[in-house]
């Protein structure tokens, strides 16, 4: 007797296919490819590649320029995330006030910097920070903080400061929005009880607000750290890593190595190392979000 075996395919898996096929081509294969490339010497336009083992990694980890790039990336990320957090917290607390009318309008308007194309952010601030005609210099002079205005992009440290301020301006709406949502989740009774017990506003903030926001703050800090560390657009548009290499973060380093240095192998290795750094943050973020979801 012939046994006809019925193969049962979970049709649900079929529905995954279109997305998975595309993802494999544009995400998975490139990820695999960039990993492989980092172990080879490859010129951008000449065909073929030469196996190099760990040569690229060795070159990077002993290169003063690359190590500087790593340091600058960490510095830029740390300060930007810190500043965004502070601005975001302030923004959330201010916009959370129940006594204000038009809160939702204010909240919506505040979102704008985060939604605009990075190019627009760049041109706005290039104009604002223009050393001759910029509004920022005008305000600084009026406030007697400087006598003749600052050449924002003329010097490394000032350029970096400008980038950090611009990026924080761009990120703070996201922070504000997230923290605001978190704040609105804290029951008012907690504050009531604290006020009855005589707690000051500062004490209420430290002992009620902050602990309740811990999870939210952790999650968005992870996200913003990842976004900031790997960001390319703003830095490229405003300074191209300059003056010199003073603002050359890792993403810019890899871009230059590949498209100007023609050293695809080295650029891939640099990208891989950058990815490994943020992988840690990504995993923490994922575990945080998924644990919450299970509850």
């Amino acid at each position: 007797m012939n046994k006809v075996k019925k193969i049962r395919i979970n049709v649900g898996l079929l529905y995954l296919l279109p997305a998975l096929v595309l993802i494999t081509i544009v995400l998975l294969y490139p990820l695999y490819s960039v990993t492989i490339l980092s172990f080879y010497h490859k010129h951008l336009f000449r065909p073929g590649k030469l196996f190099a083992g760990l040569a690229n990694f060795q070159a990077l980890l002993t290169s003063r320029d690359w190590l500087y790039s790593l340091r600058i990336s960490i510095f830029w990320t740390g300060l930007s995330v810190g500043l965004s957090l502070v601005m975001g917290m302030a923004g959330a607390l201010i916009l959370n006030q129940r006594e204000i009318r038009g809160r939702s309008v204010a909240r919506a308007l505040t979102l704008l910097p985060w939604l605009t194309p990075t190019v627009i952010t760049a041109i706005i601030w290039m104009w604002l920070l223009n050393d001759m005609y910029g509004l920022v210099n005008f305000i600084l002079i009026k406030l007697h903080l400087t006598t003749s205005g600052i050449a924002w992009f003329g010097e490394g440290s000032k350029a970096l400061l400008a980038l950090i301020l611009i990026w924080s301006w761009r990120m703070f709406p996201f922070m504000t929005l997230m923290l605001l949502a978190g704040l609105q989740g804290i029951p008012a009774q907690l504050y009531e009880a604290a006020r009855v017990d005589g707690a000051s506003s500062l004490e209420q903030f430290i002992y009620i607000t902050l602990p309740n926001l811990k999870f939210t703050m952790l999650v968005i800090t992870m996200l913003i750290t990842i976004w900031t560390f790997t960001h390319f657009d703003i830095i490229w548009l405003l300074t191209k890593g300059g003056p010199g290499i003073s603002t050359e973060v890792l993403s810019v380093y890899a871009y230059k190595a590949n498209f100007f240095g023609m050293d695809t192998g080295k650029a891939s290795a640099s990208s891989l190392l950058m990815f490994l750094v943020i992988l840690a943050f990504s995993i923490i973020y994922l575990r945080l979000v998924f644990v919450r979801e299970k509850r």
Partner: protein
Amino acid sequence: MMKAKKRLLKFVRYFLVVGVVGTAIGPFLWMLTSSIKVNQQLFLFPPKLILFQATLGHYKYIFTQTDFLGWMFNSTIVALSVTALAISTSILCAFSLVRYKYRGREFLSMFMLLLYMVPPVMLLIPLFFIIKSLHLFDTLYGLIFTHSAFSIPFCIWMLRSYLMTVPPDMEEAAVIDGCTRLGAFMRITLPILAPAVTATALFSFLLSWNEYLFSLSFVTTDSMKTLPVGIALFIGRWSVRWGEIMSAGVIGIIPAIVLFLFLEKYIVRGLTAGAVKG
């Protein structure tokens, strides 16, 4: 005495709110005013804040003397196509991840989120080679193709989150009545999810419209470029045409403004789903 203190407090509250909103939109207002200032008044130091001579000349220039309109067209085509592609594949994918049970379902879901976290810079180099070998370099197809790299994981994640809030009861009832599971999903659940799907689609459109890195690296012919890359060209080419650059910026943020009017609710809900609720 109490009344005066209360009024002062109220003033401070509004002042702070104005401060926050002002910080956010102030620079945009400056861009707007700069875009309509006559050149002589634009290059003044100290800058003229109000009461300046206005002109639409800068706008006229970018529309008639540059590829600006072409760039807008390119961006629109790419963004629409990417969104159509992403939404259609992601809806099916989300449906599968939420309504069906199979091994590795949870892993796949987490994997999708991880994929969204992949920095585009990492994909840049290999995608460059892939695009070239597929002869899609310097074409809009190449951009549509590469933009899906971030659009699809994003859409899957969003749609999955939204779908999880809709109970399967009605679908199951329809299946008992003889409908296919997919049919039930499309006829019953999708209409319910329509606002959420629309929001995700709009967001995906915006992500593609705003995108710079891939659009910069995979298209080199000026007329084929997308809007952000084109505007960036202005910066490089002109050192003093700030009026024109500002007007390009004003036009460039219109999609963002239009969409954020619709999306404001959903941004909060969508992004906080699972990330904040505790």
